[in-house]
């Protein structure tokens, strides 16, 4: 199915939904911003109150109930925002949205969750089992969009080259010859310092490692070679404040260090642990 076909099929959706949306267009609904802010304040207050008696069964049940009602704790606590990033001397501002894993708020086995912001125009989040990935978003474009954005560049090419370029820009594919670029996030039930120390022993044979410690976060910056496509990995270990940790691995290659590398670092810096109690705190000072 093409996007045009989907647009066509959408034309047939139920009339009641069309009229409902028209009410919004016609301004027959109250603006949502104030309502949203009030809801957000109410949800946060409620969660803080419930935190006080979370360890009781009724408390845990109540938090579950609130979680169901707000649909997404991450959406409520981490609203979208704009972030500016300096890439090779140029400032890029993007729309950043938080996504991640909701905490498990049960009395038996509470599990922390996390939220992390990423640029929705450039990246996408994918979940594979217990592992979350943030990967480049290969956005397909219409021919008109390609001509609008790359018109000047394309006009300098021959007709045949133009068509080839247009086709590849309309349906971009990850180059199979290039190393993977992605962020991998996984939760481990071992304290962060212990995990880092164990993994360092395994990694030292393969990588040149630079270690940095900040609060309850340990970072290994690792490279292997000086070629343009030599692999680079950055591993961040964050305490989950429950005796376990989150390990975030950013993978790219040397030439992408100023592109994906800078963007990945900015993304990882927004990482926030959401404890099962529901209040989020990016980094705390406790040590395991």
């Amino acid at each position: 199915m093409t996007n045009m076909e989907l647009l066509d099929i959408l034309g047939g959706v139920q009339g009641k939904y069309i009229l409902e949306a028209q009410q919004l267009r016609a301004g027959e609904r109250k603006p949502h911003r104030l309502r949203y802010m009030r809801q957000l304040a109410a949800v946060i207050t409620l969660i803080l109150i419930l935190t006080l008696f979370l360890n009781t069964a009724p408390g845990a049940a109540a938090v579950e109930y609130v979680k169901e009602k707000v649909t997404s704790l991450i959406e409520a606590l981490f609203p979208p925002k704009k972030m500016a990033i300096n890439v090779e001397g140029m400032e890029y501002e993007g729309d950043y949205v938080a996504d991640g894993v909701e905490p498990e708020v049960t009395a038996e086995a509470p599990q922390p969750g996390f939220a992390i912001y990423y640029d929705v125009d450039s990246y996408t989040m994918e979940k594979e089992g217990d592992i979350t990935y943030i990967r480049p978003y290969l956005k397909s474009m219409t021919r008109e969009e390609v001509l609008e954005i790359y018109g000047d560049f394309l006009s300098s090419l021959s007709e045949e080259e133009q068509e080839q370029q247009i086709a590849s820009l309309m349906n971009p594919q990850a180059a199979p010859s290039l190393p993977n670029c992605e962020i991998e996030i996984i939760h481990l039930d071992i304290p962060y310092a212990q995990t880092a120390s164990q993994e360092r022993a395994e990694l030292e044979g393969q990588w040149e490692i630079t270690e940095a410690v900040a609060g309850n976060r340990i970072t290994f910056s690792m490279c292997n070679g000086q070629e343009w496509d030599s692999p680079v990995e950055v591993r961040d270990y964050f305490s989950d404040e429950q005796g376990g940790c989150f390990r975030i691995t950013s993978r790219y290659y040397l030439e992408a260090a100023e592109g994906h590398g800078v963007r990945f670092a900015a993304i990882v810096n927004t990482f926030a642990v959401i404890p099962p109690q529901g209040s989020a705190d990016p980094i705390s000072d406790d040590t395991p």
Partner: protein
Amino acid sequence: MEDDQIIKLYFERSEQAIEETDTKYGGYCYSIAYNILTNQEDAEESVSDTYLSAWNSMPPRRPPALAAFLGKITRNVSIDRWRKYRAFKRGKGQIEIALDELSECVGGESAEDTAIRKEILASLNRFLGTLKESERSVFLCRYWYLDSTEEIAEKSGFSVSKVKSMLFRIRKRLYTQLVKEGLL
């Protein structure tokens, strides 16, 4: 005038039906057409075609919601006009126009295509039913009415980035549902 009365005028074959439709829904239809065509003259022609199509459809049809009925016709007519315009502009080569003309001889879609489209539409309606009202309206403002994210933000009171992120999440969920149901 109430919708029932306007529909009654169509059934009586009174030309006042068009006037009343234009008075009540002219602006609504024009806004849909203009969003698609971004040209005043073309949008006005699409609205006229909408009235003609409504005139030819009623009777026998008696739409339960006149606004949605007219909106759907305007959207279809305008997308069709946009497609032809694009084909003409792109074409000099006449392939798309010729194919379009030939589709009249072969009766359009195959039975299988029609069945798949119906399934996708049913899935879309189910999907829309699972969304919160605000999400559904934002989604349809964008992909049914083709309003810009800035316009949606202004009308809804959400920020532009909030609208973009809502759309992003909804598209992801829709994709997941269509894949799960074997429709992609």
